C-alpha cells in the first residue's frame, strides 16, 4: 500500500506520525471498549430487569435474557460484540432498533450544538486572549481575566440554571426547553438552542481564552520578542506576527480539548435543557444496561478525543516543525 511505502521511506514525517497515532488510537478504543463492557457487566441487574421493572418475575426475566442472548457469560458476549464491531457492525440495541438508528439523530444534534458553539467560541476566545495578552495588566485584561476565572469556577449546571431563571422564567426571552424536532426551520432551531449555546460558551470560552493569553505571554517573554520591540515594531504586530505563530501549539491543544468536551462532556447541559443529544443517550443506556448503545457512545467519545488531539498535534507540528524531533 502507498501508506506503508511512504511510512517506510520516511519522506512524509507527518503522515508517518498520523498513521502511528491512528494505530495507537485504535488500540485505545479496544481497551476502552473492554473496560466499559466489563464495568457494565458488573452493574447489578440487566436490560431485562430494567425494562420489565415491576413485572420482572424470574421466568419472564429468563425468557427476556434468552431472547437477547444475555444468558451467555459476559466474556463471550464481549467477543461476539467485538467480532461485529471490527467489521463495522455495531448490531442491534436491546430495544431491537439498530444502534445506528438510536444514536444517529442524537449524534447529529450533539454535533450541531458543538459546531454552533465552536464557531462562536473559538474565534472569540482567541481574539479575547490576544487582547488580554496585548493589554496585559491593563483594566481590560484584569476585567476579562477575573470574569473568566469566575465563570470557569462555577459548575456548568449552575450557570445553566441561572441563565434559565433569568432569560426563560423571568424575562421570557428564550424557551426553557431546547426540545428541537425534525422539521423545524433553522431559525427556530437556533432559538431553541440559544440557552445551551450560551451555557457552553461560558464554560469553554474561559478555558480557551485564559490558555491563549498564557501561551502568548509565555512567548512574549522570550528574547526575540525583546529584539522585535527594540527594532521598533508596533506592539500589535509583535503579538500577531511574532508571538502568535509560536504559541499556536498550546492554543490548538486547548481548543482540541474543549471541542472534544463539547461532543463528549455536555451531558449535564443536555439534561438541564432537555436537549436530545448523545450524552443523554449514553446515560439512558447505562441506566437500562443497553450495552451495545453504551459501547457505541463510548467509542464515539473516545474517538472524538483521539482524533481532535491528533489534529491539534498536526497543527502544532506544522506551525513548529522542531516538535517532530523531540530532544
Amino acid at each position, binding site marked *: 500500500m502507498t501508506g506503508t511505502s511512504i511510512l517506510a521511506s520516511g519522506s512524509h514525517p507527518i503522515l508517518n506520525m498520523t498513521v502511528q497515532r491512528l494505530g495507537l488510537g485504535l488500540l485505545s478504543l479496544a481497551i476502552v471498549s473492554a473496560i466499559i463492557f466489563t464495568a457494565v457487566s458488573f452493574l447489578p441487574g440487566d436490560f431485562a430487569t430494567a425494562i420489565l421493572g415491576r*413485572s420482572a418475575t424470574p*421466568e419472564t426475566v429468563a425468557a427476556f435474557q434468552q431472547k437477547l442472548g444475555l444468558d451467555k457469560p459476559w466474556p463471550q458476549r464481549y467477543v461476539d460484540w467485538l467480532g461485529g464491531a471490527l467489521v463495522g457492525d455495531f448490531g442491534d440495541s*436491546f430495544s431491537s432498533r439498530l444502534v445506528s438508528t438510536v444514536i444517529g439523530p442524537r449524534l447529529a444534534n450533539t454535533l450541531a450544538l458543538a459546531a454552533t458553539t465552536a464557531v462562536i467560541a473559538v474565534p472569540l476566545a482567541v481574539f479575547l486572549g490576544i487582547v488580554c495578552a496585548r493589554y496585559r495588566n491593563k483594566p481590560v485584561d484584569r476585567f476579562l481575566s477575573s470574569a473568566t476565572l469566575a465563570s470557569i469556577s462555577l459548575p456548568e449546571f449552575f450557570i445553566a440554571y441561572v441563565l434559565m431563571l433569568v432569560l426563560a422564567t423571568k424575562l421570557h426571552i428564550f424557551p*426553557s426547553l431546547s*426540545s428541537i424536532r425534525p422539521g423545524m426551520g433553522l431559525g427556530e432551531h437556533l432559538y431553541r438552542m440559544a440557552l445551551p449555546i450560551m451555557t457552553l460558551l461560558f464554560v469553554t470560552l474561559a478555558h480557551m481564552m485564559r490558555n491563549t493569553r498564557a501561551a502568548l505571554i509565555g512567548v512574549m517573554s522570550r528574547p526575540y520578542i525583546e529584539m522585535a520591540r527594540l527594532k521598533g515594531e508596533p506592539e500589535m504586530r509583535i503579538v500577531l506576527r511574532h508571538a502568535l505563530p509560536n504559541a499556536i501549539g498550546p492554543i490548538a491543544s486547548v481548543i482540541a480539548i474543549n471541542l472534544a468536551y463539547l461532543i463528549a462532556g455536555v451531558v449535564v447541559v443536555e439534561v438541564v435543557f*432537555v436537549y*436530545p443529544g448523545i450524552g*443523554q443517550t449514553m446515560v*439512558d443506556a447505562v441506566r437500562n444496561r443497553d450495552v451495545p448503545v453504551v459501547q457505541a457512545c463510548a467509542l464515539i467519545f473516545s474517538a472524538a478525543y483521539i482524533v481532535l488531539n491528533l489534529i491539534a498535534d498536526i497543527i502544532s507540528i506544522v506551525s513548529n516543525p522542531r516538535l517532530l524531533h523531540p530532544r
Partner: protein
Amino acid sequence: MSDARLREMQFWAERLRKGGISRREFLGRAAALAAAAGVGSSLTPSLLHAEEPKQGGYARFGMSDASQQDTLDPGTWPASFAQAAFNGSLCNNLTEIAADGSIIGDLAESFEPADGARKWIFKIRNGITFHDGKSLTVKDIQESFHHHMGDASSSGAKSLLSQVETIEADGPNTVVFNLKSGTADFPYLVADYHLSIMPAKEGGGIDWQRGVGTGSFILENFEPGIAVKMKRNPNYHKDNKPHFDEVEFVAIMDATARLNAFITGEVEFIGDLDVNNIALIERNSDLAVGRIPSLRHFTFDMDTSTAPFDNPDVRMALKYALDRDDVIRKVFRGEAIKGNDTPVASEMPFYFDPQPQHDYDVDKAKAYLAKAGLSSLDIDLSVSEAAFPGAIAAAVLYKEHAAKAGININVVREADDGYWENVWLKKPFNGCDWYGRATCDWLFSTAYAADASWNNTHWKNPRFNELLIAARSETDQEQRASQYREMQQIIHDDGGVITVAFVNWIVGISKKIGHGEIGGIFPCDNLRMTERWWMA
C-alpha cells in the same frame, strides 16, 4: 368568600389530603361552602371542575420517566410515559378503569362470567376500526393476548395471563376466555396496560411495529426518549372524545427542567412534581397542583419466617413503635396518607379499614415486647433512597421512636443500585416502595399469598390463603366483601408489613386544562388523560 369559610375549606382540604375524610365527603362539604359563598372553584380547581368539555387545542404533557429504550411493543412499556402514550392514547383494552375506580367496558360493550368465573364472555362493540381503517375482529383480540403468553414470552403481562387456558371466538363479536380457575376480578386484569389490542398479523402475532391502534389519538411521530406526537382520531368510538386536536408527550427527566417547562408554559402538565416545589406552583394563579390518591405505598417489611419476626407479638410491638404522623409531617411534608398495616388503598374495591388504627404507642409496644418474653430488641433495618423516596429519613425517625420502647433499630444504609436485586426479598427487615394493584386479589396474589413471587414478608397465613382462593372465584359480592374484610383484618393483625403511608400522585396541571375527577389506580388519570381532559 369570607375568611371563616376560606379557613373551613382549607381545613377540609387538609383533612382530605391527610386521609381523614373521603373525596366524596370533601366534594360535598366544599360544594356546600362554595354554594354558600358563591365562589370556590379557585380554591380547589382539581376537584370542583364541572364545566362542559370543549373541543380543540394542543396539549403537551411533560413526563419524568421516558427512556431511549422505549418501544411500541406492548410487552414492555415500563413507565408512565410509554403507558399513557401507547396504551392510554394509541390503544384500547377490552375494559377500562373509570376515574372512580370502577370497571367499565371499552372495546367490549359488555362482559359476564360463567361457570363460577372460570369462563369470561366479552361482547365486542360493533364498528370499531383501527387507525389504518381495518375493522377490529376477534382474531386481533386473540393475537393481542397471545403476544404475552407462552413460555417464550418476555412480556411483563406473562404471569398475569398464566391463568388463561384458551381464548375462543364465539361468532364474530364474542370472545370467550377459559381460565384455569375461577377469577372474579378478570375484567380488571384485562384493563392492564400491557393488554392493549393491536392488529393481528397474517400467520399469527400482532403488528405492533407500525404503531396502529384503535385509540383516541393517532401516532404521528415517536422519537424514543424524546417525544411522542399524536393527532385526534376522528373515528373514535366514544362520543365527542377525544377533545384535544393534538397532544404531545415530552420527555423531561430533570425535575428542575420539568418544573421550569411547566412554569414557562412549555407544557400544560408535569408528572412527578417534587413536594418541595408545591408552594412555588400554588403561588402561581395560572397553575395548579393535582394530588391524586394512588395505590402507591411505602412499607417496612419484616421477614415473618425468621427470628425475631416469626413471633407475632414482636411484629405487633414494631407496628406500635412507629410514629407514622411524625414521619408524614417531617419526611413527606404532610403530602401522604397514614398507613394502617395493610397494602389496600381506599380507592380499591372491597377496601376495609381494619381496627384499631396502629398509632405510636410506647406502652403497647413495650407490652407486646414483654408478651414475647423480651425486655429489649436489637434489629437491623435495611434501607436506601431507592427503597422509597425518603426511606432513610423515615428509618432514622423510626429508630428514634422505637428506642423509647426499648427497641434498638440499627439503620443499615444499602446501595441504591441493586437494591431490588440484593436487599428486597432478601434482608429480613427492609423498606419497600409498592405501586399497588387495582384489586385485592391481584395485590394479594402478587405479594402476600404463600407462594407469591414477591412475598417480601415471607408470610404464610393458612386462613388468609384459604380465603384468597375462596374469594377469587366468589361471584356473590356480599360474600366476597366479607372475605376481603377478614383478609385485610388478618394482614393488619398478623402480617409482616408495616405500612408507613400511602402517597398521592403529585402532578402539575395548568388551569388551561379542564378535567373531571382524576383516577389514581394508574398514573395520568388511569393512563387515559389525553381522551378524558380538554382545553378549558
